[in-house]
């Protein structure tokens, strides 16, 4: 028979555990609710150029996947680590206007081609040649609502119908007239810019809020990297997005959509500088396996790996740096030196334990992007880790940097480590290199193409190093150091929040960011949960007008 002492001991332990659990839960709950009541910093309304993926996703959503869209937009300056923020801070030139019109013409011609137009037309014109204003109006109103992400005004519809009528008369073809107008709409500022419209906030006299359609766009481009769908436009129309219940309902629906993948892909492609893959080339004499298509597949591999890890498996973001799971194509398998069934593209693949491959940093994409065309670079790789994954800018090298020690052909340097030690003997260089090189040296088991190696020029590679005080011995333990570094998750939160609100974060955003970091931690570092937290935080839609900006001026968009 158990003693009463024993019983009370167990009971006491259970009570203690319950108290601790209750305290943790209460703490979390208070954190969640109380912090959310703290004041937020609001930025001005933004006007942001649509990105290529957003343009493409719009066309796919409206007209299907078989419409060809431009694959590359003109380059945009990266701002605070994100092209997306560069899009929100760019000027449009006459050349760019012309280019958007050409894009629009191409799309419009495909959409209204005889083989397709019946599918997209909500009506049949009275005659293919004679102008049919009623039918033109039906098409323009329907398509325009999705292109402009809000209902068209009567004035806009009237103007476009008149233009379609005139063009149809001139071209003696109803559909060509309509195509002319569709191209114009696809080049219009209302489409190529995603802009915020504000209105007086009825709950806070004297303050302003984003109008419902602007909220819908901000939500949709953040969670889907795509324009609002019909249900979201309807929610905006009903005013649901101004209520917490309505907003929650839409957010839950959107997070449950497969289109969340588009957002994850869009964000990480931006954060990890995937635009640089466009110009990435390797010396094929040195790396004959790095053939055409490898860069493209390397980017796709990382995107599929990230999406699968974060969305499909809902795994911890930090484990992205230690997982051996990835996706494999035939072109990449040649670099990884593994067999793969070539009849299938991008199959899930788990690296062997002794492969030396663990996590994002050991993917060919990361390794080859942060290398020279013909050799690896611990400095560039370290810089890549610092700037893209830890949000820690690395100073530019001085203009008078002396590479003579480093490049000395007479120097008996077999490994990059030996060369860098010599280079870093110059105090002017050492300060910056100590920020980057100890990280990059941990990836020296991979050459400039990302191929695994144990030796360099016959010398065994020492892949040890340290990251912010944490020593590591090889690429795997570097991945663990990344996983455990608080800057890894803090960087993601800051970048993702900035990506969502379309502006760089400022010192006044610190409270919000710290709150998001805590909630990210509380949610087990699951990125979809972080995205939900961000969009439900009042900071996400917060907007303020500069004193000199007349509200009517901004709101007059509508």
């Amino acid at each position: 028979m158990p003693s009463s002492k024993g019983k009370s001991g167990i009971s006491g332990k259970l009570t203690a555990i319950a108290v601790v659990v209750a305290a943790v839960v209460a703490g979390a709950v208070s954190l969640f609710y109380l912090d959310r009541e703290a004041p937020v910093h609001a930025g001005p309304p933004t006007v942001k150029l649509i990105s290529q993926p957003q343009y493409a996703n719009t066309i796919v959503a409206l007209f299907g996947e078989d419409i060809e869209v431009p694959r590359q937009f003109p380059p945009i300056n990266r701002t605070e680590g994100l092209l997306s923020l560069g899009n929100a801070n760019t000027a449009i030139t006459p050349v760019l206007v012309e280019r958007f019109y050409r894009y629009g013409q191409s799309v419009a011609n495909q959409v209204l081609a005889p083989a397709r137009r019946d599918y997209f037309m909500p009506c049949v014109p009275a005659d293919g040649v004679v102008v049919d204003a009623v039918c033109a109006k039906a098409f323009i109103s329907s398509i325009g609502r999705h292109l402009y992400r809000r209902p068209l005004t009567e004035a806009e519809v009237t103007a476009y119908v008149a233009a379609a009528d005139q063009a149809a008369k001139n071209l003696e073809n109803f559909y060509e007239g309509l195509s002319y107008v569709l191209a114009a709409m696809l080049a219009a500022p209302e489409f190529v810019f995603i802009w915020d419209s504000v209105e007086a906030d009825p709950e806070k006299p004297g303050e302003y809020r984003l109008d419902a359609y602007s909220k819908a766009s901000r939500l949709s481009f953040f969670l889907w990297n795509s324009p609002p769908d019909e249900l979201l436009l309807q929610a905006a129309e009903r005013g649901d997005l101004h209520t917490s219940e309505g907003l929650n309902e839409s957010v839950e629906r959107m997070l449950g959509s497969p289109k969340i993948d588009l957002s994850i892909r869009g964000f990480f492609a931006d954060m990890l500088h995937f635009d640089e893959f466009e110009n990435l080339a390797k010396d094929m004499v040195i790396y004959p396996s790095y053939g055409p298509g490898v860069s493209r597949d390397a980017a796709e591999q990382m995107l599929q790996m990230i999406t699968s890890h974060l969305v499909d498996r809902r795994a911890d973001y930090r484990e992205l740096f230690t997982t051996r799971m990835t996706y494999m194509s035939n072109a990449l398998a040649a670099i990884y030196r593994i067999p793969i069934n070539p009849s299938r593209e991008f199959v899930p693949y788990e690296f062997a334990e002794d492969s030396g491959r663990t996590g994002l940093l050991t993917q060919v994409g990361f390794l080859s992007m942060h290398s020279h065309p013909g050799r690896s670079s611990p400095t560039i790789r370290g810089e890549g880790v610092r700037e893209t994954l830890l949000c820690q800018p690395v100073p530019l090298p001085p203009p008078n940097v002396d590479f003579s020690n480093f490049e000395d052909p007479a120097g008996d340097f077999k490994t990059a480590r030996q060369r860098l030690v010599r280079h870093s003997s110059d105090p002017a260089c050492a300060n910056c290199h100590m920020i980057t090189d100890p990280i990059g040296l941990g990836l020296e088991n991979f050459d400039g193409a990302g191929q695994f190696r144990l030796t360099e020029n016959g010398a065994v590679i020492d892949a040890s190093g340290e990251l912010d005080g944490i020593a590591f011995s090889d690429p795997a333990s570097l991945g663990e150091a990344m996983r455990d570094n608080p800057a890894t998750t803090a960087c993601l939160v800051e970048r993702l929040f900035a990506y969502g609100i379309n502006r760089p974060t400022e010192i006044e955003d610190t409270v919000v960011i710290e709150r998001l970091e805590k909630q990210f931690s509380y949610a087990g570092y699951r990125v979809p949960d972080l995205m939900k937290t961000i969009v439900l935080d009042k900071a996400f839609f917060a907007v303020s007008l500069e004193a000199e900006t007349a509200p009517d001026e901004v709101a007059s968009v509508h």
Partner: protein
Amino acid sequence: MNTCPRVFRKGPPVLVLLAAQSLSFGAWADIAEPVEGRIGLVLGYLNHAIYQTEDGKEECPDGFHFTQNDNFEAQFPTEAERESVLRKYVYYTNRGPNGENVFFHPTVIEDPLPLRDVKGAIGLGINLDGRVDDNDFSSPDGENGIDNELYRVIGCIPGWRNGGTIDGSFRTEVRASHKMRMLIEISDVDDVHNDLDVTVMMYRALDGIEVGPDNNLIPFRSQRIDYREGQRYIHKMRGKLVDGTLYTEPVDITVPVYGPFNILQDFSMRDARFQLKLTGDGAEGYLGGYYDVERWWLNFTKIWGAHFNADVTGWSGPATYSGLKRFADEYPDENGVNTAISGAYRLEFVRSFVVHSEDESDRTKPALMTDRGARNAKQ
């Protein structure tokens, strides 16, 4: 008659090979290590093993071989005679006594202009019989006993030489489709430089290849085996690696060869064996053996057709056929007349992974001609 063991027994001792190869290929390159004891190789280039100098004077001191047209004009020296033949028999290859096509019936006449065969001492290929005979060639590196009598016959015909019509056709066909895509897998490899007991499988590959901007094949891509239509090309051989060079025991094989416009040729080779030097990311060397003269003739006349042979490749049927018979050097018939002629292909491979798919659909699917495909099924 199973002659494989006989010929292999006649091969040179390993020590001789070791010495010869050390001379031939010099120091080891950094040969990529096998993966799980396997080395895959996919064909990037194939042509007859032709040793040639720039102007051809070393190997063809009498000049290049006379063409079909040269022989036509020699056979019918006047314009009137030629017009008469053409009027009666339509085409200038139909110059037999009864208008026979001389590519299809090469013995109905003797060409007035004899074959100009190779006179040089240097040739490419393999010492097939282990002997050094008077008619053997020496390799450019000094190895004696090279058996390549086919080269003696065709080496002075411009259309057969490197850069000629046949070479160009093979270059195209090897890359254009999987049909000539020979696939080799060396397994049980313990040491990539020296291993006296390895297994070598020959297949035809199923998948597309990728060529880099430097016009070379991308190494280390994976290839499936063509089980569906390529069964006849599957051959198993014992082999050995000596100083980084693969030598296989002789076996009778079918070599996947296709002519222009993807016309099936399928060369049979007796006592065929590989001699391939492994390089950093590939291999190069020879596939040597004996061709049945009649079968070889059939492949290049009836399959390629008289027009292609006469006008495009530019060789003459009767003189070449008689050359093949004259220089045939193995497999005597009951009358002691040799029926097979030694020859060799020069081959270049890049490293590949041979995928042994257990998926039944992979064994029955049509061949994949390119590497393009849907990139992201999710979008």
